[in-house]
């Protein structure tokens, strides 16, 4: 037990990242800053909604990252963990949940800020808004569960089960809240007829997804590396 513990600690320490500038994370932040400069200064103001519409560029992109990248990754990593029992997958799921919580929170904060001038209310029980709120609850529950289990293997198994079930739940929440009337704008960019967005706006909007995704990957990798370092420290302490 001691031998295998120390050898795994050495492996973990060896694969732990070296110190230095995290260029992926830096370029993620720079890309997001760049598209926002473009969105504010070099993209026309929308005729009906005015400057408030500029929230779109951060709101929709964060929603895309939170729902499809972070939440999707959480579900996939959870399922794979139950199958392969690889601790790295547990760490990926944990990182995806934490970074996903940040992006979901951004969606929930920017949504009401946009909704107030356009819908006339900070909050409505609109289908997509409710779904995002429940995603937020699910991720918070997931992270609280992780914090409440001492044993490492048990924590990984419990959180993988919850992560997988949460993905299964999303369509059910979507369906049940959708049967209530929805007032969210229907997709206006990717509809089959020509998109109702000016070319300049499209040139801000589409690269913005890439920038936000890059920031997500940067944050995810940083969080994953932090987890590796934390494990390496824990393994060293156990050795003493």
């Amino acid at each position: 037990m001691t031998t295998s513990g120390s050898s795994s600690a050495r492996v973990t320490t060896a694969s732990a990242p070296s110190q230095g500038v995290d260029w992926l994370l830096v370029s993620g932040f720079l890309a997001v800053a760049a598209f926002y400069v473009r969105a504010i200064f070099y993209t026309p103001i929308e005729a009906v909604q005015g400057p408030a519409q500029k929230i779109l560029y951060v709101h929709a992109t964060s929603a895309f990252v939170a729902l499809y990248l972070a939440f999707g990754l959480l579900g996939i990593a959870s399922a794979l963990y139950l199958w392969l029992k690889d601790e790295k997958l547990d760490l990926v799921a944990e990182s995806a949940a934490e970074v996903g919580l940040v992006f979901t929170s951004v969606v929930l904060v920017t949504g009401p800020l946009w909704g107030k001038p356009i819908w006339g209310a900070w909050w409505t029980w609109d289908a997509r808004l409710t779904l995002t709120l429940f995603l937020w609850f699910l991720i918070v529950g997931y992270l609280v569960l992780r914090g409440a289990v001492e044993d490492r293997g048990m924590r990984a198994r419990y959180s993988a089960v919850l992560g997988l079930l949460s993905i299964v739940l999303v369509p059910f929440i979507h369906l049940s809240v959708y049967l209530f009337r929805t007032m969210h704008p229907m997709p206006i960019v990717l509809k089959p007829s020509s998109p109702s967005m000016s070319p300049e706006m499209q040139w801000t909007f589409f690269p913005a997804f890439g920038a936000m995704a890059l920031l997500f990957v940067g944050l995810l990798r940083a969080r994953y590396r932090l987890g590796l370092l934390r494990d390496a420290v824990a393994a060293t302490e156990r050795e003493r």
Partner: protein
Amino acid sequence: MQSTPPGLFRASWLVARKDLAIEFRTRTAFFSTLVFALLGLTIFFFAWDPTTVAAIDLAPGVLWAIFAFSGLLGLQRSFGVEQADRAMDALLAAPLDREAVYLGKAVANLLFVGGVQLVTIPALALFYNVPLAGIALPLAGVALLAAIGLVAVGTLFSSMAVNTRLAELLLPMLSLPFFLPIVVSASMTTARLLAGRPAAEAWPWLRILLAFDLVFGVACTLLFPFTVEE
């Protein structure tokens, strides 16, 4: 004593019978859950102005919100009783499939929740003065579907929550987002039944409830063994 291990259904029933026997002999959880549900009915009634909101409009939502909260009380107990003297270890050491342990627990919980519903629904008719007698049969069907979904998810989460530092605090936090589709579908169906609307109007909601039971019944049975392995 049987020499061969019992089959899945027989084994599940043995586990369920054990849980029900414990509950029947102590009766603590059932009566406290029942009193909690009845208290909930009265408190909700006084939380609205009866001159602006009619009791019949309020009743479906109150019924299913209380169903979700009182269900949590019973579910907490499900694996809580296995904590004393590490009874869970004995249960896992018994020659039973892990799935049978889950299904047995779920069946016991279903009867527990059903028993509470059996008193709460007539109490709702009495306190809120709503004519439930005419829709008793379809309402019982909705209650059964809702209870199956609730215990499917709740039994699994109960087995996890008891082993955490937060224990009883964690179960509602994990379960309630999963109860949302159940509570919404059951409330909407009940409201349409009460209003005498055609069955077709309730069908989309019932479909969600049916799909939920099926998907989570299967998923939780398959995932339960992962929560108890060593």
